[in-house]
């Protein structure tokens, strides 16, 4: 199960729910995270938070096949992504040679080195045949702060901690020697290596903000209002309700068996169109594809969302719909700064 190291369960587990039916694919989360934490050389290529178009190769490329878990949760050797081919380097541009006279021919603005991949390379590419069943949706991803973190289990130096207070998984960069077993082990590919500082880096769940009761930048800055932040055991908060009570928020790749604490409300999709052009009434994202991402629970989760929506349409109340609507956006976040501060 999960990992070999014995971990004491944290007092509270922070968690995030992302409602994919509200994601705009705007990347404000990505930019919010990037500008706050990873502006420097060394992590310039790294996105703790990214948004990818699914189906697609994702970021880093083909990430779900390169981690340390098989489809049945067995340990296998993972891979470290290549900076050019898999992550995409932080491209430099030739503004000066474009704007100003130089000896060579006038250039057009472009990234150096003619890159063939980047963190959002296949945006809106999707799959399927126009117009019958072409489909895609946006999948924002960040560290899952797993209950059984593969990164933690991979570190020979015990430099990765799962905090007792809140379950946030942190790389202790004072202890890290940059061996990168965590990078290769994480099947979500959400640990990065900083070659400049020679340490691993990953999402810190915006810990300094959480200590002040301010939600992580990716969540608080999301204009689609699709992120909820709180604790799995807080029955008054949105997380418990969406995950445990309504069971509409489910983890990505549960088969890896690591207990992710980032959950997704799976995407509905417009009805497919039959070969004759008639709307079919069936969603255009194949259920088999959604199951490959979210496991079999995705069927029930979608059914519950649709059923509650039908209730609301019929004029009946629905707690679930009201939560997802987020009438008062502040209620998306149920954060107790004291939980995160106690150790300091």
């Amino acid at each position, binding site marked *: 199960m999960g*990992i*070999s*190291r014995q971990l004491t369960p944290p007092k509270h587990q922070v968690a995030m729910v992302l409602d994919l039916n509200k994601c705009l694919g705007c990347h404000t989360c990505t930019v919010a995270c990037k500008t706050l934490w990873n502006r420097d050389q*060394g992590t310039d*290529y790294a996105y703790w938070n990214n948004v990818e178009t699914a189906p697609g190769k994702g970021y880093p490329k083909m990430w779900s096949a390169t981690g*340390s878990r098989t489809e049945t949760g067995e*340990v*296998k*050797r*993972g891979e*470290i*992504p*290549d*900076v*050019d081919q898999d*992550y995409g*380097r932080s491209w430099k541009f030739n503004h000066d040679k474009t704007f100003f006279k130089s000896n060579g021919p006038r250039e057009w603005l472009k990234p150096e080195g003619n890159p063939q991949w980047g963190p959002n390379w296949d945006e809106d590419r999707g799959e399927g045949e126009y117009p019958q069943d072409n489909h895609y949706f946006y999948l924002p991803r960040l560290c899952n702060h797993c209950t059984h973190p*593969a990164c*933690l*289990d*991979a*570190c*020979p*130096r*015990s430099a990765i901690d799962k905090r007792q207070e809140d379950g946030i998984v942190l790389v202790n960069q004072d202890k890290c*020697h*940059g*061996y*990168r*077993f965590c*990078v*290769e*082990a994480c099947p979500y590919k959400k640990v*990065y*290596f900083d*070659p*400049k500082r*020679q340490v691993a880096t990953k999402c810190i769940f915006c810990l300094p903000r959480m200590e002040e009761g301010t939600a992580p930048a990716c969540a608080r800055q999301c204009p689609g209002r699709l992120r909820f932040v709180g604790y799995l055991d807080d029955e008054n908060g949105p997380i418990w309700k969406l995950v445990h009570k309504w069971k509409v928020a489910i983890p990505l790749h549960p088969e890896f068996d690591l207990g992710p604490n980032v959950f997704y409300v799976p995407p509905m999709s417009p009805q497919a169109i039959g070969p004759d052009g008639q709307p079919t009434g069936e969603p255009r994202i194949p259920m088999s594809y959604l199951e490959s991402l979210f496991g079999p629970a995705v069927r029930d989760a979608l059914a519950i969302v649709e059923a509650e929506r039908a209730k609301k349409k019929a004029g009946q109340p629905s707690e679930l719909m009201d939560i997802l609507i987020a009438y008062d956006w502040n209620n998306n976040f149920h954060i107790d700064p004291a939980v995160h501060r106690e150790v300091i």
Partner: protein
Amino acid sequence: MNTRSIKLVVAPTGFQPGGYIAKAYADRNTALTGKADVGVDTANGFVISLRWKCQHPMIDASDNPRQFIDACALLVPEKADAPWITMGAPGLPVAGVLWRADKTQPMAIRAEGLGSVQRSEAPNNWKAESNYADGYWRVTFTLPQWAPLAEHRQFAIAVWQGAQSERAGLKSISEGWLPL
């Protein structure tokens, strides 16, 4: 300088802490560096040189997270019965010096078992000169003083081939403590 050829063996991955490395690297059961030439000169402090075959040298502190750097290290016991294969054990520390191809200065290391390695700045007068030629690395450590080596008169060696993703416990090591 007194030079000999030393057989290297793979550091057993099964000992590695955590649930991942032992399983994921169980297939690494042969040394990627089979031998090393070791030269020792104790005329003036310690001058110890290592030479090993390396097809694809990895020198740059690359900006690619996938690339690892060639390295080698000398290890010496601080207590007589410190085990070399686990880099010491609690209460039985080992000390060492680490050379990395991307660094000009060697680093001092200390450990009491796998996963416990601490790095620190080496004494100013320690040097590690390196040269890559004809498919071989040659690294010469010049260590004017090193008390545990002076005391115990034995050392072990480790070699990492960056191109083969060797780092940490993925390495080739001597079969035991080597007499000076």
